[in-house]
């Protein structure tokens, strides 16, 4: 999956990379550090396949360092969770970057909720 995602899409930080940064941010928020390091190990071999700028963002994200806009997005999601406001904030960052990040973040959120509902049903 990573081979077709890293470096894919428009922009200096290609969309695929933004989604992955979003996923890493989501994993960090939930404290899933084991999952972070598993994912990070898989990302490393593909780093040369993207732009210098994006590689920098990915490396920082693997170490748990994110831009202020990522923190803002997490805060908005975690706050009153108004979906319109969240989407509005996300779409202000770059041409597609903010929304791509949000896709990554929300996918972790969704996966986590699925897991939990299975756990509570069991």
């Amino acid at each position: 999956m990573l081979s077709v995602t890293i470096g894919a899409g428009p922009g200096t930080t290609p969309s695929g990379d933004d989604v992955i940064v979003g996923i890493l941010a989501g994993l960090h928020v939930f404290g899933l550090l084991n999952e972070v390091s598993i994912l990070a190990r898989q990302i490393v071999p593909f780093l040369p396949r993207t732009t210098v700028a994006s590689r920098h963002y990915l490396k920082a994200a693997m170490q748990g360092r994110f831009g202020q806009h990522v923190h803002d997005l997490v805060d908005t999601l975690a706050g009153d969770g108004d979906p319109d406001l969240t989407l509005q904030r996300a779409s202000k960052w770059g041409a597609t970057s903010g929304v791509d990040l949000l896709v990554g973040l929300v996918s972790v959120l969704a996966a986590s909720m699925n897991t939990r509902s299975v756990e509570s049903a069991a």
Partner: protein
Amino acid sequence: MNSPKTTVLSSRVLRHFYRDSVALMAIASATEKREGVIRVGAVMATPANRGILADSDMLPPDLNAESDDLVFVVRAESEDTAKEALDAAEAGLTAVETSGAIEEQRPGTVDEGVHAALAGDGESPANLAAISIAGTYAPIVAERAIRNGLHILCFSDNVAVEDEVRLKKLAVAGGVLFMGPDCGTAIIDGIPLGFANVVKQGKVGMVAASGTGAQEVSRLLDLAGVGVSQLIGVGGRDLSADVGGIMTGFALDLLERDEGTEAIVVVSKPPSTDVATALISRLEGIASHGKPVVACFLGMDDADPDSVTPGVVVRGTLEGGAIATAHLAGHELAVTDLDPIEPVPGRVLGLFTGGTLASEAKIILKRAGVDCEILDLGDDQYTAGRPHPMIDPEARADKIIEAGADSSVGIILLDVVLGHGASRDPATPVAEAVMAARSEAESVGRRLEFVASVCGTAADPQGIERQRTILRDAGVILAATNASAVRFVAAQQAGAHAS
């Protein structure tokens, strides 16, 4: 439509080239619209993107590019068309970097940038920093630049008002301008910064808290034969109670002392009450020392010097401000209104790209008692994730087409803003959308009229006559000024209600 049997695929690689993806998308979409161009791709040449290009049959077989190279691919009907499209795209991509004879510095940090600017080439070090980064970080950069004696043009918005006040005080103490935040228009020593029309150099000094307001006044002065000495932007909040007109006051000090300035016009929304009193008495002081002053405060009642405000002419519209200023400079600006046409049933919808032009329209229509919906499409709620409609006119084109299907709308007001920073051809997307909307309306037997003004000068890069012709050919009714276009609409509505 015939689709040609054979097509060609051409590409161009820009080595180690980055361009903001908003700009990239705008250029790609413009290129794709060219006659004979079928498809365009503009991506960083990463392996994944090369895969995507290959999947859509857009990967040049001999592509020699790395992940940090930008590749621009065009599929077109002929070799020549493809080459022309690539040339145009490359010109568009590199235009910002090579315009003028100024060598671009590429500093890695703010400090490096400030040092490089101050070092200059030994003869004329830079004395102004233009700041266009996320608003949260702009104050840090601005402060360093101010402390190093640089004037600031702060294009960034979302700067906290406390930071604005602090930085403006710091700038005044250091004897430099802080233009902004959210300042898109200035002309300093004849050099346009941001969005600005190409106007004559002359004797009128302008202080402006609004971008398109400053553009409309300066281009109307130009039309009247009056040039501008300096156009100092101060940011939209400068005359609010919070900021207290700090930068307006400082700009007035500079213009009062400036030998090249013989008359002054201040363009703004009406100042807050506390600020207004002090400002008007300041303006009266300047006028009494021999430099006549026009206060163009949108929505305020007109007043002449012998009544409420001795020495200061107050005008409540941009057009009124320009006429009064031209008059003070010894020139007359005659605006001829359009003859009325047969009244159009349906409501008035304004689709503006210029915020202050939208405000002027609202004010005039409100005074005329006309119900209307006036949208400023440059407002944050419409620009999320896409460029300002003055840069990318497509967003407005969509709105125009939507209005074609809205049976309640009878007349649509538009502005077309030219000059530096604006789209290279704002008229064409408007004209295409107007024709589509009109044919949609007419297909159900509805009449739909379009009225516009072009905010531009004869010297603007887009070519004002060409732009006007494109609009006129699409059946757009063209007025000389934004205010005149609005008056025409108001008269139509009065006629429509009377009949």
